[in-house]
């Protein structure tokens, strides 16, 4: 079975890392997902991952980052299927979330830290999760196969 024919599928958004712009990031992902008929579980997973990274940038970058760029792309999988991928970049000081210690979700209540779940979500919901430091920016890539094929592109 040949790989599915897909429309050009890559788009980016550049934002200031401000809490009030989270809705813009969510809307960007929803629009892309709707355009490419993503299954809802995949849209939710990418929204969650993007929000967690955006919140990290806002809450933990010192000195504060001045920009965030988020990109979504799709590529065919062989022999079938579609792989959706995202790249999240910011100009914060180096921070490698893939090196962050695993959260122990079995800890009893009195030992449970309040934070740390965001990166755990990405690890659990994505197939790939990588980090690079490039030209003074953090570049975090993650992705997963879509849970079902989108319908054929309209001609």
């Amino acid at each position, binding site marked *: 079975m040949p790989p599915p024919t897909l429309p050009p599928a890559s788009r980016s958004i550049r934002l200031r890392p401000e*809490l*009030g712009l*989270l*809705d813009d990031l*969510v809307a960007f992902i*929803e629009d892309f*997902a*709707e355009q490419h008929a993503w299954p*809802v*579980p995949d*849209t*939710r997973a990418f*929204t*969650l991952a993007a*929000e*967690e990274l*955006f*919140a990290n940038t*806002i809450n933990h970058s010192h000195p504060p980052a001045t920009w965030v760029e988020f990109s979504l792309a799709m590529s065919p999988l062989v022999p079938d299927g579609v792989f959706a991928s995202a790249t999240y970049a910011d100009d914060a000081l180096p921070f490698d979330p893939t090196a962050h210690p695993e959260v122990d*979700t*079995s*800890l009893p*209540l*009195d030992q*449970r830290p*309040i*934070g*740390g*779940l*965001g990166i*755990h*979500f990405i690890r*659990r*919901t994505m197939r790939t999760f990588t980090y690079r430091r490039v030209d003074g920016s953090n570049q975090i890539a993650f992705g997963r196969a879509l849970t079902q094929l989108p319908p054929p592109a309209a001609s």
Partner: protein
Amino acid sequence: MVCFQLRMDVSIEHLGDLLVVAISGRLDTTSAPVFDAQLAPLLAQPRPRILLNLEGVSYISSAGLRSVLQLVKHTAAHKGRVGMFAAPPHIMEVIEISGFPSLLDVYPDRTSALSALA
């Protein structure tokens, strides 16, 4: 159209000493501090029993779970527990990934929750 809700609403119901908190919409980085602020006056006094109605929650992130964890810690400090019911499957999935089911009581619906807590 996926059409995630971008706002969050909270309604509070007092059933004796049981606080039933119904959340709808998105409990995320933006709305979780609003949720915390709405609950703060109620948590100024001991609330050992809190029940969360998650039926209307469309999305939850770690910020939302942090708010829930604060409620769990509040009730535990007063020798109580938090219960939750009616979480949609995709919300339950996030809750399970977080390991939260061991920290609170999970009920399928309001009737079973209220009868267990009667």
